[in-house]
């Protein structure tokens, strides 16, 4: 029993390593296909006028001819390169921005998944009631609104018009705060982008959980659970919802793949100093090393999350372990 299982895991890890290699290649080559270059982007809109020779020298300076092999070699030495724009190591820039994105996106994901799951399960349980029907209607409408739209509206109403929330940034700069004050200040800044993201993610989770739950509730084992005289909450969660969880977990994993793009829109709207804003700037400036670094790190994160999910699936549903 032991050896085939290890074999399966080994195959799995090999597959993921191969995928990582392909991703590395893509993140190396794809950004190079962007039209324009750093020199044009940097000096095109500035007052500085370059003559042909200066321009050629600058181009030669900001040219990376090392090819994929060189790129891979540097990666293995944990050398991510040096940003042209910010004149700082890419890794420093990345790890400065990462916590902000993680806080924003992680909270949004967790909250919307948990809320979506619980409310979806409860809605399915109350199927056919007026509340449930209204809930499904509202969620379907919300599901159709992109975060670009809801984000802009929230910004307009609550930050610019009402002024309840700050319109930009993740914290008040240069303020002398105690830890509690600082936390409150950061939450205050977080509120609007977080709400935007929850509005974007929650309806999908709700609808998915509800649909899964409605299907599961038709299963004979749920009737058996009721027949066993178990408390309704137990029937709902230990028996029914537990089996409706799998698609939700899948969605959670898939959403991670959109983490950077999701962040890109929302962080840009609210000028939030996360990976999204960083990537946006990097692309605008054609800062190749920075783009490559962010894209690669983000895709490796998605791979890692998927690998973790493979394991979580087997914990959630013993049948998955037998499927392979």
């Amino acid at each position, binding site marked *: 029993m032991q050896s085939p299982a290890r074999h399966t895991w080994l195959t799995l890890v090999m597959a993921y390593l191969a995928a990582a290699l392909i991703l590395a290649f893509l993140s190396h080559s794809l950004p190079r296909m962007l039209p324009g270059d750093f020199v044009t982007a940097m000096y095109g809109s500035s007052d500085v006028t370059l003559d042909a020779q200066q321009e050629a020298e600058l181009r030669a300076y900001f040219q990376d001819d090392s090819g994929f092999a060189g790129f891979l070699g540097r990666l293995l030495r944990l050398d991510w390169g040096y940003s042209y724009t910010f004149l700082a190591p890419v890794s420093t820039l990345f790890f400065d921005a990462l916590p902000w994105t993680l806080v924003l996106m992680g909270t949004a994901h967790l909250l919307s998944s948990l809320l979506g799951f619980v409310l979806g399960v409860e809605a399915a349980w109350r199927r056919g009631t007026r509340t449930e029907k209204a809930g499904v209607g509202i969620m379907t409408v919300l599901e159709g609104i992109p975060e670009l739209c809801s984000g802009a509206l929230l910004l307009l109403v609550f930050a610019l018009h009402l002024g309840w929330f700050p319109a930009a940034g993740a914290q008040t700069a240069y303020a002398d705060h105690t830890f509690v004050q600082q936390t409150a200040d950061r939450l205050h800044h977080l509120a609007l982008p977080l709400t935007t993201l929850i509005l974007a993610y929650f309806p999908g989770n709700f609808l998915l959980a509800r649909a899964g739950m409605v299907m599961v509730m038709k299963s004979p084992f749920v009737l058996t659970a009721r027949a066993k005289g*178990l408390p309704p909450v137990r029937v709902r969660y230990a028996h029914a919802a537990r089996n409706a969880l799998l698609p939700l977990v899948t969605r959670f994993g898939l959403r991670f793949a959109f983490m950077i793009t999701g962040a890109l829109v929302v962080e840009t709207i609210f000028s939030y100093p996360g990976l999204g804003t960083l990537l946006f700037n990097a692309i605008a400036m054609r800062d190749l090393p920075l783009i490559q670094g962010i894209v690669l790190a983000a895709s490796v994160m998605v791979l890692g999350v998927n690998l973790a999910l493979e394991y979580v699936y087997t914990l959630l549903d013993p049948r998955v372990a037998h499927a392979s």
Partner: protein
Amino acid sequence: MRITINKLTVQYTEDDHSLLALDRVDLHLTPGRITALVGESGSGKTTLGKAIMGLLPDNATVQGEILLDQDNLLDFDEARMNAIRWGTVAMVFQNGAANLNPVHRLKYQVAEPLIQRGTPKKRALALAETRLTDMGLAPELADRYPHELSGGQVQRGLLAMGLILDPPVLILDEPTAALDAVTKSFIADVIQDCRAQNRSVLLITHDLDLAGALADEIAVLYLGQVMEYLPGRHLMERPAHPYTLALARAFPTMDAVRDLGGIRGDAFYRMVHAHAAENGTAHVHTHVAAPDAYHEGGHAPPEGCLFKPRCTQAVPACALGQVEMEITPDGDHRVRCIRGGIASILEFEQVAKSYGRVTALHATDLTLMAGEVFCLVGETGSGKTTLAMIAAGAVSPDQGNRIFQGRDMDGWMEKDPDSLAPRIGIIYQNPAESVSHRLTVFEIVAEPLRIHKTVTDEAALKDRVCAALSDVRLSTSPEFLKRYPHELNMGAIQRVCLARALVHEPDLLIADEPTSALDPSVQAKVLKMLLTLQIEKGLTLLFVTHNIGLARKVADLVGVMAGGRIIESGPAARIIHHPDHDYTRTLIRSARGVNPSRPAVSSPL
């Protein structure tokens, strides 16, 4: 604890109509007794089980009473109902593994009711393991997930789960469906243990063998109505309702020797729905129809017997009034049938016939029940044909009475032969000699209709003839209708004879050696067709043959004739497997064929 169900009616409402799943069902579950509920799929068996558990879906409307001792469960709210579930009334649902949660281990699911009622987890799991071991599941199986268990193991697990709280009332829904014989017999033992432990057991099943062997009382359900209550041991041997008989005949037992016969027609659902009538008021009515085409099904009358369209002994009166339960004369059965259960179609009382000094038939009593196939077996000259022809009304007996469908046959024949003759069809031994060579196929089949002036209009006559011919799978093309018998092979002529016998849609068909002139492959085809028609038309068949091997493939009942007497008669299985009479044994032994290891019989000369 006992459960008393009084006039339980359950309707499922769907959009503008509802399905009548149970219709005034009475049932008693008594401690130490097994009550079985049998019937086709869709007859409402499972609905009854769920109704007792209070687990009917939201669209169900329930009327009547389900008494647990004195308390009406239908008055209980959800919390009170939940309190008696599993501890007082437990149910083992059908479809095995689907009833187990795929993400929890078997042991845990069995122990769960205990844990929820306050038993410490460790002890509950240990108890569950003991229960599972009692059911013949090894401890390592108890730790598995449902998808890692076989169907039999799952069923054992479900039983262990049902019994974990030691409930006084246990409902078992198809506990042996899709199981192998060994597991099935183990589960039968467990059910019998439940009786010994003084539980009230409701066994819902379509396994008649199991129901017959285990149940103290059986209720036979058809379209939500109980058709018959009978003692379990009578199910296969002595059913009183035509539906019960048909079910029993369709069920494969080790004893069945006859080819399995289905029940003619299909079981539909009972729809209740309202129309706006012309005067604007709503007109609510019930009718029987297929679920997908309930308006095309026609509006069957809301009264009369539900089984009438499929019954082998229906009379016009069956369509009238409410059919109530009646106790049969022997007192053991209660049937919902205005004819008091399976009726006799033909009775002989001391009927005898002699030709000169030769007594062809000694004084004989015989009863043919509607819808059954009775085979007369015996060697040539034993009086089979004489008896068959007397039954057909073609030969008059010297003494004794013949009663056909409750009327004296001789009197009927004298007064109104045209109404009697169409009710009896005959097929003769030698097809070639039983048709006139001067008549075409059309004229042969049309002749009975003309003689009895049943149909006078030529077009209608042609329709009837063509219908009869297509029943026996013969061509109805104009060329074929113009053929003469000598142009046909023997098998086709016998089918023409069968069409002629059936053209009046008789109630009784008498077939005298109908296949002895045919070669075996044609014989097999004609026989299969005959039996199919017997079921589809609901015929009673008196089948005469010298071949007991053939009889066992055809007959429900066999009568063995020798020397002008019926020396032995009874269910085919018993006669074939446990014959009483030496002559029957000889007959069976000879039918086994020429034994090559036996020395050749030398000529007496």
